């Protein structure tokens, strides 16, 4: 079943087309990589799916419905920036997520935080950017969402944090969920991808099953990407 269906998306800024007819679907149980170099339009597509940018043309359907409060209740989104109010403590963030998201698993969040050696009274203002990103990831992955959208989860983090993020994603991703990950660090993520979408200049230039593409082209996804996207 298509949990996410993106049809013919277009977006312009100051008369410059940045997204040019993007279409794809994400099915339940799949991890899909939206792969492209910096400035290719990955984040713009993700922002349109999450109602953070208006859509010039095209349609986004989540679980068969247009974007609304109902669809937002089943999407867990990790943006490429820190969106938590830094004057809050970790407990405040957990309470906020519990208050608004019916699918938020507080016990799971507390367990994951314990693994990081954090307790609720830690203030975000005293934490490094990397630590804040980890907390954000924990909050996002502690929801029992139908669709997880992770925008550049590995951007600007050290290799050990990358491993931590990867472990957290895999540990908490359920079979009945779907995931859309954007990244330009393909080598780090390709082993977990079921499907890939290559985006360049606001267009999908190649898409398909990761396994099939590897077999057809005789290269890794990273290798194919380097060849296709110049």
């Amino acid at each position: 079943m298509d949990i996410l269906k993106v049809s013919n998306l277009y977006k312009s800024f100051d008369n410059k087309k940045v997204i040019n007819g993007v279409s794809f679907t994400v099915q339940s149980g799949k991890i899909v990589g939206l792969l492209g170099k910096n400035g290719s339009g990955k984040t713009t597509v993700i922002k349109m799916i999450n109602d953070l940018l208006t859509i010039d043309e095209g349609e986004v359907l989540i679980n068969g419905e247009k974007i609304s409060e109902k669809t937002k209740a089943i999407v867990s989104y990790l943006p490429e920036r820190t969106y938590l109010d830094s004057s809050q403590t970790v407990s405040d963030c957990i309470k906020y997520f519990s208050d608004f998201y019916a699918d938020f698993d507080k016990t799971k969040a507390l367990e994951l935080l314990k693994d990081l050696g954090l307790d609720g009274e830690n203030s975000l203002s005293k934490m490094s950017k990397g630590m804040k990103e980890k907390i954000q990831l924990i909050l996002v992955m502690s929801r029992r969402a139908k669709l997880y959208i992770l925008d550049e989860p590995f951007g600007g983090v050290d290799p050990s944090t990358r491993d931590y993020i990867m472990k957290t994603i895999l540990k908490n991703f359920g079979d009945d969920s779907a995931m859309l990950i954007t990244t330009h660090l393909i080598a780090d993520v390709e082993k977990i991808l079921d499907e890939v979408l290559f985006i360049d200049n606001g267009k999908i230039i190649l898409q398909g099953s990761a396994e099939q593409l590897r077999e057809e082209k005789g290269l890794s996804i990273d290798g194919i990407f380097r060849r296709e996207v110049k």
Partner: protein
Amino acid sequence: MIRKLFYYDIKKMTKILKWFYLISIAFAVITRLINIGKEIQAIHIIGQVFAGFTYSAIANILINTFIHILRVFLYDFYRDESYLTHTLPVSKNKLFISKCLAGLAVVLSSVIVCVLTLFIMLYSKDVMLTVKSLISVAVSGLNMSSGAFIAILIVIILAQITAMMSMAYTAIVKANTYNRNRGFKGVAWFIAYYFGSTIVTLIIAVIVFAIGGNLSELVAEVMSASSFMTVMILALVLYPVYTFIHVLLCKWLFNKGVNVD
């Protein structure tokens, strides 16, 4: 859900303001205590200094009330925190209404704290008598009680602040429909809305006074009681109308969708 949003909006808007409220009331209490011994010259001077601090604290509350209400609106809807706000399972309507109600509640609480501060610092039988006599001069000929006059004045001040707040909200939303120079455009749109409404008010006042045959009263040094009453009624009608128009415009622009950086 709107109750939860309202709770978090109030919490954010008063995060720093609540300390300013405390400081203001603390200064008022200290000034009051110092003034017990004001017959002694040195203590009188110290009392005057603290009275100055208290007035500054009141001004600080008024300025910061606006800054914090607008900051929360801007940051929650268009800056980094908007990535969380707009992905909450809540309709845009509820997000918007919560911000308006929270803003209104914070304005009201700031006005109450300012009045309370003045009351703590200045209350005495003599001061109250002076205020009463000033008000009785003002209401003579208006055919209303002093209490009603004060109530109308407070309503007008609140209505004016609310109208300005709605204009500022609309200016922020309008400016964020553009891709560039959003800060500058926000200020420009606020000035346009404010002066636009001022010009409309002036035109309506001229028409009303011209129809009443007392246009010269508008520029007279001393206004008659009936003209003063007309001005108060105009304010009581026009400020809520401006608020209503701007809230509708702002809501319409906001519901069309946001473009977050």
